[in-house]
């Protein structure tokens, strides 16, 4: 058996090294607890908020009603043709991520990403059941026995319940939550609901319980994209090596002469949910959750050294500190042309959406001239044009619309299958109506190639009036 030497290639594959993050106390940990509670709260509670919209509409505040093609968000109701609102929100979400990343690095990853939040929750459960870092390592190493089986079973059961609640909450956004909850437990819900719950339960359980940092490092594209959003003014988490190095253990409770502030206590490594050493510098795996800052500050307090050996720093601050120049204030990092531009773009889209929201008309019409044929000659020589009119009634009550064209055009208007110029559109429905305009023989519209026409739609009993511009095709003589 030959001894391994430098020429023998290393293994191409590496097993995941388990990570046992230690409990930590501090301001970033507290911030993360509050954000976790807030975001989990939003996720689980939102589908249960009620919102009265009248008798014909669902009373769920946030509802993606795919079956009826409606999106309800509190007082806002989005129809499929208004999907640009959703596109606008996605653009805003994208710009928001750009803004936060260029200002403060991977804050999304560290504090708000569902993968981070649920992993944090799963680690919390793990700590309750199996104890803190050292106890968990011991349990991990020991042979399977009654204690290990019991602790693993309790932990996995708790994870599974959280995972199922997560998968379950997701489907409540798509149909009436109280009804679906009963249906889910009585076996009445649709197959797609069960399948969705099953898939999301499985992914939550696997990603939060076992894959954890592997998702961030290997599966998620965002860490790679974020590198392009960062520059030398972006706040990231950094180790002040010029203060900490050379690191070394305490000698009789004192830092030995010639050594830096870092006493190599490994606190920053032990609390890291990604299993990295921040002292190696900025790296792909760092999600900037801030827990190493809390851990190090705790150590610094104990040995009586100044805090923030590890802290939020921009590259320019590092350079400044090394040169002994005071660093820029945080606000100067946050407010600079790049972030201001992102903010302007973000608010521009937002203001545009809000304006569009308030300019939406309760009556929506679309008039499409029939082009096959462009006109029909009637027996008395009248020239007739047909139009396919779509009328949307976005109100909760049936509405009568009266159609008209300006008198001076000389055109008369008829509705297919109806005797008058009025048509009823049922509540929350879209109606297609064939409309005819007749130009008497020899009249101007009958003999011109194209005449611009404005068709008016008036809601009976109100002053709501909208128009749609179209054309009348004549028979050129």
């Amino acid at each position: 058996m030959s001894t391994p030497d430098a020429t023998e290639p290393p293994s191409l594959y590496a097993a995941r090294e388990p990570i046992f993050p230690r409990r930590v106390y501090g301001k970033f940990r507290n911030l993360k607890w509050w954000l976790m509670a807030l975001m989990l709260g939003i996720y689980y509670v939102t589908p249960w908020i009620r919102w009265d919209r009248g008798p014909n509409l669902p009373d769920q505040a946030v509802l993606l009603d795919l079956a009826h093609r409606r999106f309800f968000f509190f007082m806002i109701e989005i129809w499929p043709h208004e999907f640009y609102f959703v596109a606008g929100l996605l653009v805003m979400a994208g710009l928001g991520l750009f803004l936060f990343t260029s200002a403060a690095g991977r804050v999304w990853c560290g504090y708000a990403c569902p993968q981070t939040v649920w992993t944090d929750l799963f680690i919390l459960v793990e700590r309750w059941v199996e104890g803190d870092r050292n106890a968990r390592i011991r349990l991990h190493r020991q042979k399977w026995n009654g204690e290990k089986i019991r602790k693993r079973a309790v932990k996995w059961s708790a994870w599974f319940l959280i995972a199922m609640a997560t998968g379950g909450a997701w489907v409540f956004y798509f149909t009436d939550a109280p009804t679906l909850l009963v249906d889910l437990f009585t076996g009445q819900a649709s197959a797609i609901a069960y399948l969705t719950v099953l898939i999301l339960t499985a992914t939550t359980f696997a990603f939060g319980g076992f894959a954890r940092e592997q998702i961030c490092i290997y599966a998620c594209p965002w860490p790679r994209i974020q590198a392009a959003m960062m520059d030398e003014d972006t706040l990231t988490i950094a180790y002040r090596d010029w203060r900490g190095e050379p690191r070394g253990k305490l000698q009789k409770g004192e830092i030995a002469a010639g050594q830096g502030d870092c006493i190599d206590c490994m606190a920053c490594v032990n609390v890291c949910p990604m299993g990295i050493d921040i002292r190696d510098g900025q790296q792909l795996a760092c999600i900037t959750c801030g827990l190493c800052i809390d851990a190090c500050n705790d150590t610094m307090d104990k040995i009586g050294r100044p805090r923030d050996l590890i802290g939020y720093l921009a590259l320019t601050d590092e350079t400044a500190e090394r040169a002994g120049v005071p660093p820029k204030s945080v606000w100067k990092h946050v407010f600079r042309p790049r972030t201001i531009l992102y903010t302007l773009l973000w608010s521009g889209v937002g203001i545009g959406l809000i304006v569009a929201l308030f300019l939406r008309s309760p009556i929506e019409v679309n008039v499409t001239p029939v082009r096959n044929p462009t006109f029909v000659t009637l027996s008395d020589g009248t020239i007739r044009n047909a139009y396919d009119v779509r009328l949307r009634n976005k109100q909760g009550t049936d509405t009568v619309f009266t159609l008209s064209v300006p008198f001076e055009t000389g055109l008369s208007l008829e509705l297919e299958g109806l005797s008058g110029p009025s048509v009823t559109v049922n509540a929350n429905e879209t109606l297609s109506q064939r409309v005819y305009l007749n130009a008497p023989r020899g009249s101007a519209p009958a003999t011109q190639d194209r005449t611009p026409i404005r068709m008016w739609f008036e809601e009976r009993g109100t002053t709501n009036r909208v128009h749609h511009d179209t054309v009348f095709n004549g028979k050129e003589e």
Partner: protein
Amino acid sequence: MCAKKVTQKPAEVKTTGHVWDGIEEYDNPMPRWWVWVFYATIVWGIGYTIAYPAWPLISGATPGLLGASTRADVVAEIKRFDDANGPIKARLVQADMTTVSQDAELMSFAQNAGAAVFRTNCTTCHGSGANGIAGKGYPSLLDDDWLWGGDIENIQTTITHGIRNTTHPEARWSQMPAFGADGILERPQIAEVVEYVLKMSGQDHDATLASVGEAVYLDNCAACHMEDGSGDINQGAPNLADAIWLYGGSREAITYTVVNARFGVMPGWNDKLTEDEIRAVSLYVHSRGGGQ
């Protein structure tokens, strides 16, 4: 793992030896779970080819253990829709055609079903927009001029049995004599009657010839086309006094029609379409703007 160092220092990580602008590429190992996922996809792929149609054979392919077939899916889906439409089709067959338009649901179904039947069977002659072919004898179905009647019952009868269709005893039937070709009228008489027809329809005409032509018209044409030229839907005789012409309204076109006689044929559809399809397409045609 806690005993040993969690991470190596960057200097200890092997690099591939590639350097671009001083940037080196780490040679980190792949995560092992990823390799297992890769193997799992291969196993899944093999299983998939066993479960589903996959391997090509001389004719066809292996059917797969699950018996999946997209053709069978389509057949099943069509059957599902046919079954779902069964009750409303039965309602359409039972319905009184003159009052269907008051039943919004039934009318909506008839409109859509009729449009599909029309596109498949009628567009060859009447055009995809149902406006016929002007001057070629294929009538427009959008106007208010009907050879055999434009109320819903007449339209249904015409579609059911056809026009001048020898295979249906109940088909619409009439025939205009070829006044010139068969020697019924002399050439000058034909010229006179054509001027009179032009006069009736309000076009430019020779007043002298037309006044002589009136007598010729009343003797030879009025029996079918009526004294005032308004035509007769019971005989399929077109209105000659209006603005719509089946074969063109110019002096030359009318002369040709009087000399040679022109008329079209239409097949009967009751042996090709089901009763509900005939009713649906009748309602569709009736609601294109010309229905009476």
